[in-house]
């Protein structure tokens, strides 16, 4: 029971800190600056889908070159159960 109480208190503290911290940004998991995203200051549909699917487990791969985007997104389509439409949107975000 001590461990359960400890778990609850730490998670609660983390949540409180998270909700009260200053200047929230769009996301902390994955953000790749693209011309489109930067220019509109709003995450496009592809970026939102990347954050919601790929970015929930890992950060943006820094070494991703344009020649690999199709292969990487196809891998993610299988792993994250993306639809073909999701695949296209994320691919458009990674290689605009």
């Amino acid at each position, binding site marked *: 029971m001590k461990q359960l109480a400890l778990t609850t208190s730490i998670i609660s503290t983390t949540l409180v800190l998270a909700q009260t911290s200053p200047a929230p940004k769009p996301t902390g998991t994955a953000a790749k600056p693209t011309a489109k995203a930067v220019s509109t200051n709003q995450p496009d549909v592809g970026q939102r889908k990347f954050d919601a699917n790929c970015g929930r487990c890992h950060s943006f791969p820094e070494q991703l070159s344009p020649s690999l985007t*199709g292969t990487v997104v196809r891998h993610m389509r299988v792993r994250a159960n993306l639809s073909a439409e999701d695949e296209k949107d994320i691919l458009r975000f990674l290689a605009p």
Partner: protein
Amino acid sequence: MLHGGRPMTANSLLMRLKDGFIVRNILLALPMLLVFPFAGLKADAQNTPLISGGVGFLTTTNGGVTALQPVISPVAAVPLGEHILVESRAYISDFIAPKNGNSGPYQGDFFAGLQYLQLDYLATPKVTLTVGDFLTPFATYNERLTPIWISNFQDAPLIYPIGNQQGSSIGVMLRGNAYSAPHVRLNYTGYFSVSSSVKQFTGERASGGRFSMYLPDKRLEIGVSYSRLLQGQQGNSEGFDVWWQPYRVPLAIRSEYAHGPHSQGYWVEAAYRLSQWSGPDSWLGRLEPVFRMQQTFRDSPGQDQLPAVNTQRADFGLDYHLPHEVRVNTSYSRQFASTGNTNIWETTVTYRFLFPTWKGRSK
């Protein structure tokens, strides 16, 4: 979950649950994957076969006994045409620990094997057919968090063996997105695995799957899993998982509950990247405190790889995300059980690599 009295990483557990095989088979298999596209199939500008993965150095001090483990875990992914992907992940390590468990000279225990080798066929926009040796889709940890460059903790959760049939399954799997709307997504995965004693590809006869609902607005995912072992002492395993990542906060809460034929348990993990204070690339923003609580409950005696007695464990971690895909994970764990309480200190340094196998053709 113990190897020489020490908790095992998900990858080493996965590889030891399966019959491992010698490294020359890997060295033969991976290059063959990369040769497939040359057989009359052309890679377009974005579909170049890739080599990715992670290199790591793991240390564990459990009850005063230290073990070291250099690891390389390469991933190969080869697209064939417009609808096929062949992918594989290997795990090669040398587990260096005292010869007799607690004392004596250190000796290495070399291990190499494939964690999965599968062919994916994108049949329709919402259906993918997978054949081969694939990671068992039970709950979330096995498919998503076992790569050494992704997991927040070096050790797998205590309940990891429940429902995962040796970590991977051999057979056929159907998966995809069942329904997609702006406010809700429904995903499904179902598989059937055959019994196999082929040393390179051992498997158990089993079936199961996972169904999940994801709410993008809330960034909340709820999933249920089921697995039935169809050989030996047949039994059912059920799982329930919840992930929540608030949209405006770099916080990730992940949890799983699993119930197997002989035991049950849960884990809850909270990770909070300090990127909100001074940006994700500042020295402070690269820090990520992590906490995980887990408990297992023994319902009856059985060989299910879970602790033999009821066990509670708290993991306190501090991860640091260095530039250039280098990551340092540190953790302290306190494990409570009637067989004895234990302190576990762990450090993991990983580097994630990703590169094309050749320069892609321009359109």
